[in-house]
Structure formats: C-alpha cells, structure tokens
C-alpha cells in the first residue's frame, strides 16, 4: 500500500488497482469547519484533474479533483451525512471516494507522504 499526495492537497491511497481519495489534514485545516460534502455516484468515470467531489466549509467552497483517471467504485456516504468527519479524520474515515485505476502510470510524479509534509511546511 502506498500513499501519494497532490499539490492540490488530495491524498491517494493505492491498494492493487484501487485508489482511495481524500483531502489532507492541511487542506481541512485551511478550510476550517466543514459543513457540506458531496461525493460522486458509483459508476461515474472521472478523468485526472476533473472535479469529482465538493467540500465546503463555513467560509469556502472547493472542488476535490480526481488525481487519477478511472471509474468510481465506492463513495463515502458517511462524509456526505456528517461532513465534520473530514475535519476530525481527514486522512482516515473522512475519505471521499474510491477509483479503479485506468493507468497506474498516472501516479508517477505525485509526492510521497514525506515529500508532501515537507512541502506543506514551506507554505
């Protein structure tokens, strides 16, 4: 299992050909109190860089991008029902959706956890 991060503050946990996607702890801190989350429908095809989910805090609205291309195989209804989960456990129970990867090669060039944490510290 490997975890990757994007400069848009998504994390991608890869197990086999399935990637679980959420937003980083840094992202939830920046957003503040999250009051709304919308996850994609299972079966939807998303392309790398395309908006796939929505997260809104009291003060800001953001799209969560699909960091890789594939088909949505599972969506986390728990964050839609209880958006504060994204604040309390952003990199665990607060995941947004799972994708079956079309092309694992798209993961190349993403940051690993150490590189991401180092980069965030410079922001």
């Amino acid at each position, binding site marked *: 299992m490997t975890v990757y991060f994007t400069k*848009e*503050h*998504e994390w991608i946990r890869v197990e086999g050909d399935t990637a679980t996607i959420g*937003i980083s702890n840094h*992202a939830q801190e*920046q957003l*503040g*109190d999250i*009051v*709304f989350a*919308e996850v994609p429908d299972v079966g939807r095809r998303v392309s790398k860089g395309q*908006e796939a989910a*929505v*997260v*809104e*805090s*009291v*003060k*800001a*609205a*953001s*799209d*969560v*991008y699909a960091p890789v291309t594939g088909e949505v195989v599972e969506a986390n209804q728990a964050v839609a029902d209880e*958006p504060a989960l994204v604040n309390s456990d952003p990199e665990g129970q607060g995941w947004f959706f799972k994708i079956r990867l079309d092309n694992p090669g798209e993961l190349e060039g993403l940051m690993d956890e150490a590189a991401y944490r180092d980069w965030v510290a410079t922001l």
Partner: protein
Amino acid sequence: MSREVHNGPTDDTQARGTHYAGDPDGGAGTETPSLDKLPLDAWHRERGGRMVPFAGYEMPVQYEGIMAEHLWTRENAGLFDVSHMGQLLVHGRDVDAALERLMPGDFKAAADMKPKYSLLLDESGGIIDDLMATRRGDDFYIVVNGATKHGDIAVMEQRLPSEVVVDHMKEQALLALQGPRAAEVLEKIIPGVSDLGFMQGGPFNWNGRNLWISRSGYTGEDGFEISVPAVAAADLTDAIVADDLAKPIGLGARDSLRLEAGLPLYGHDIDHETTPVMAGLNFAINKRRRAEGGFAGDLRILAELEQGTPQKRVGFDVDGRQPVREGALVLDAEGNEVGRITSGGFSPSLQRPIAMGYVASHLADVGTELKLSQRGKLIGARVGAMPFVPHRYHRKGATA
C-alpha cells in the same frame, strides 16, 4: 482540491487590500498594495488568529474556528477587533444641517449620545456606505466601514461646506464585545456600562484613558462597541478576555453572525447600485426627511417609497445542506433569472444554509418558492423572514 469561492468579509472582492471604491471587483487584477497592521496585530497572532487581508489590513479571520466562535458569541461574550473601521469626528458650524444633505437621517433633532444607523448616499440615491452617527454635543461621531473609509472621507470633504471639518480619529482602536453575557463581563471592568440602553452611548474612563462606549453592534445580540486609544487597546483587550466568559472572535464569525441577524454587509448586500428602499432600509429614512427631502438622491428615493422598487433585498431559506454564496442566481419557477444572492453561508446557529439577496419585488413575499443556481446546480429555496435568528438587543426595563 481547488479553492473556488470565499465567502463574506474574507471574500476576495473585498480582501485584496485595496480600498473599496465602488469597483465591484474590489480592484481585481490590480497589484496588492502592502497591508496595514491593526493596533492589536501582535495580540491576534499571539492568540493564534489566522490573519487574512481585509479592507487594507491584515485581520484575524478566526482563532479556534468559525463555528465555535459563532456559537460562543451567541451564548457568552465575543470580543471583536474592528479597528479597521473608520472613526470620524465631524464638526463645524451647522454640521447637522450639512450632514442632512448627504444622508436621509434626522441629524438636526438627533438626541445627544444616541447612535443612529444612516446611509451616505450619492446623487442618484445609491449607497456609498452605511454607518452609525452619534451626536456628541455639537459634533457628530461617525463610524464607517473599513474598506470604504478613505472614499467616504473624500466624499464628505468634497460635499460638505468648508466650515465643516472631518477628523479621522486614526489614533483610536475600536472593539466590540457582543453576546448575552457582554454586559456582565464589561460591567466588572468598566462600572456603569450596563446602565446604557440599547443604542445609547457615553464617555467612560478606564485606567486613566477616555473611552467612548455605545450599546450597539453587528451580531443581533446585546453588546457594546468601545472606542479606545490605540495605545491602550491591548491592555483593555487583555482585561476583557481575562474573564472566562469572553473570547476573541474573528471576521469569519462576525460575518455569519450578522447574516443570521439579517444585517446587510456593505460591498455585498448594499452598494452604489442599490438604494435604501431596494435594500429594505426604509427605517433609516426619517419621517421629516420624507416630507421635506433635501438629501442626495431624494427624488428617486421618495418616488421609490411611494411606488416601490423593481427588486428588494430578502432572506432565503435554502433547501439541503449546501451553502449558497454570493453570486448565485435566483430563478423563478420557469427558470427566468429574477435576482441574485449577495451573501450566503451555513448558519451555525440553525445548522442549515441561509442567504440574502435581491429578487423581483412581486416574488419577494415570505414563503415564495424559488430556485438558486450555483455552479451549474439548481437548489430549492424560499423567501424567508429576516432576521433568521431573532435579535436579542437589550431593552431597558426588560428582565435580564
């Protein structure tokens, strides 16, 4: 993840560090000039305030979190640093008559030490700013919005007769202590403040410093606004938050509190394109002034009072949980554009989205079903009564 829309006073439209000068884009695309620091800048940072650009200053948008700060203010006492706002002292011969040319309030009969909400108007009745004006003897103490203060001063100096002088009290900080326990907290520090009635002000003394305190605010709660010499602001702030009932509150909660209270925010819900009648601020147009006119934009505004306006400011109860924000369109049942959202967000007190905006007057009755269009999505809403959360201002004689 993208950051698409900021909301309320942290909105980029007002947060670019440019002075709001009637440009709805707030100087978008222009270079960000250097930001000023508040007298309490270091205090905010020590307290963990997250500083953002607003109205030309670096200001705390939140400390522990908007939701918690909002609810704290509704239940206890929240301390706001609003030193970015402009404090003006306007004085000179016949200052009251001179101010009546620019604003629709009754300045001539204004009672001493009673703050009045008023509106600085342009010649076509558009709103240049909203403000609080208080007679202090022969002078008027006027508090204007931070993002508009330099423009306001320029307008006043240009339009007031030369014998009337506008002093910008730059050496004063401004604090607001708001919430149901504000009086209890402040009375312990500055005895006598709890004797003030709602919308009443007076001079006080604290540690040898002269303060001006009024019982007023922007949250819908009981509370006070305190003008204090900037050099003493940190000491007073420390004295207030030494009380466990008081916590510092950022701009984020200030916005959600005023939205729940149904209070318009300049540059968003009111601006040059809106008139007091469109904005539902008729209470600020005094009875004598309605009969006599004689203020900027009077022809249009008096006609609007008579005949109504094509659009009105209303509140919206929004279906579901997704906040609908400034810029969303209001559609009728047939999908025609009939209005626009000017403020919106998630109400921490009600735990649901609420919004404010303009809609065609024939669709402005409470309960009217409408659709809101935001980023390609239609969201159900109906015109809702404002305030969304009832005001709890202090009434003299009422039991505490």
